[in-house]
């Protein structure tokens, strides 16, 4: 699948990285995926936040994920006028449920859109879209499929 990085300038929106979320984005740059776990009540959360949404504790453990999960739901996007995306149609938008529990929004790559199915086992691929930003996408799992 053609990657945006082959172009001169990456045209899709990039995340705003701040002091609260920087550790997560830096880990992704190292090709590592983390979720957070409250050290006080044990609640898991994604995306990263300073305080636990269950008990408001700021005592947080970063849990490294295996990078494996299953497609919870998806859509093959055939129309999006927005800059960057209109040049990469069709693309697969999905919510993936990590084996650790939380769901995250992503793209399914390295797979023809017509073969994408709910509950398909997938594994993380780290797409270094710019020198500063890496995005976590998923492809069909090689070992388990």
């Amino acid at each position, binding site marked *: 699948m053609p990657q945006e990085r082959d172009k001169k300038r990456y045209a899709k929106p990039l*995340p705003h990285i701040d002091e609260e*979320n920087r550790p997560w984005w830096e880990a992704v740059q190292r090709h590592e995926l983390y979720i957070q776990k409250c050290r006080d009540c044990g609640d898991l959360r994604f995306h990263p936040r300073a305080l636990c949404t269950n008990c408001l504790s700021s005592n947080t453990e970063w849990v490294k994920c295996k990078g494996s999960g299953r497609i919870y739901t*998806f859509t093959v996007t055939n129309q999006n006028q927005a800059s*960057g995306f209109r040049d990469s149609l069709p693309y697969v*938008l999905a919510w993936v449920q990590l084996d650790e529990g939380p769901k995250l929004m992503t793209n399914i790559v390295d797979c023809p859109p017509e073969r994408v199915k709910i509950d398909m086992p997938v594994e993380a691929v780290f797409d270094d879209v710019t020198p500063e930003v890496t995005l976590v996408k998923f492809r069909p799992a090689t070992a388990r499929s």
Partner: protein
Amino acid sequence: MSLSRKTALVGVYEHPTRFAPDKSMYQIMAESVSGALQDAGLTIKDIDGLCTAGMGMGPMGIVGFCDYMNLTPNFVDGTNIGGSSFVAHTAHAAAAINAGLCEVAVIVYGSTAASGRFAIGTGGGGGGGDPCDQYEFPFGPTTVGAYAMIAQRHMYDYGTTPEQLAEIAVTMRLHASMNPLAKYRDPITVEDVLASRVISSPLHLLDCCIISDGGGALVVTSAERARDLKKKPAYILGAGETVRHAARGQRDFLEIAAAQSGRLAFERAGVSHKDIDMAMIYDSFTITVLTTLENLGFCKRGEGGAFVSGGRLRYDGDFPINTDGGGLSSNHPGMRGMFLVIEAVKQLRGECGPRQVKDCKIALAHGTGGALGTRHSGATLILTNQ
């Protein structure tokens, strides 16, 4: 404290325009306020409460609109929770009137979404500033796509079919054919819906609402004052509102805001599902209707596909909805909750001509704002003419 029958909608106005390149959003809003006041038999001098939200307004848009209209109300509510805002405003206005904060509240909306060429459903380039946006916008979620993911999961879990979703669009078009103001009035078939191009799987073009210009306004006052006004009052029986989102990564995506807002509205209104004679259900997409009906409790989760089939939702069916043709065929100027309340009131008054639901005594309106597949609001309102 129960709000039941203490306040009423006494004026409604749907702006007839569907395409108005010659008008500003503010002019459409002002004309809508004028229309609703005339409908109620009130004047601009009677307004002492104002509620609005819009897509083209600034963050303090309600103050700008008061400037434009030269209003200095005693109560203002600029709550913006997307397309459901005006359903929520109606409840907020009722509560404010009941609490003595104001006496006559006007709720208004206007938009030039079509003539301004907003790519509402398929412009997912976003770049919003909220923390959650940073983990979503990089992957290209369009509004259609976010709803499509709900449809995909519903089909996977319950075997819901594209034909069942298509029947919702077909029914809305039938209703639009009886509404002279509707933008699209030519009948369509299930085959037409399935043959239209797939925008974001599994949703076809005709599973998606249209984009139009438009506007409307509502007037709410106390039940006591309502008795002396021109039109038969539509009393507010109960209301509820809430939001749903990714829930720190742990959401059950087929449970939507309507489950909570609907439960609250029914409890507060003191009526049950079988008492509802017709409903106005936000139809941004066909799947929105199906999941909303399930979550409001009109059928069980997973049974929505069967529930919407066989003509049940037609104006002359067992459970009529969206008799104006809905967002799928009549109008959708960006935030459609306004028109849910307007049509519900017209049905309760018996003003709907060929699409009138027989013996309509209790109506429900449910607005959805945002996107079911990412985050959204839901607001439910139950009204009666009794």
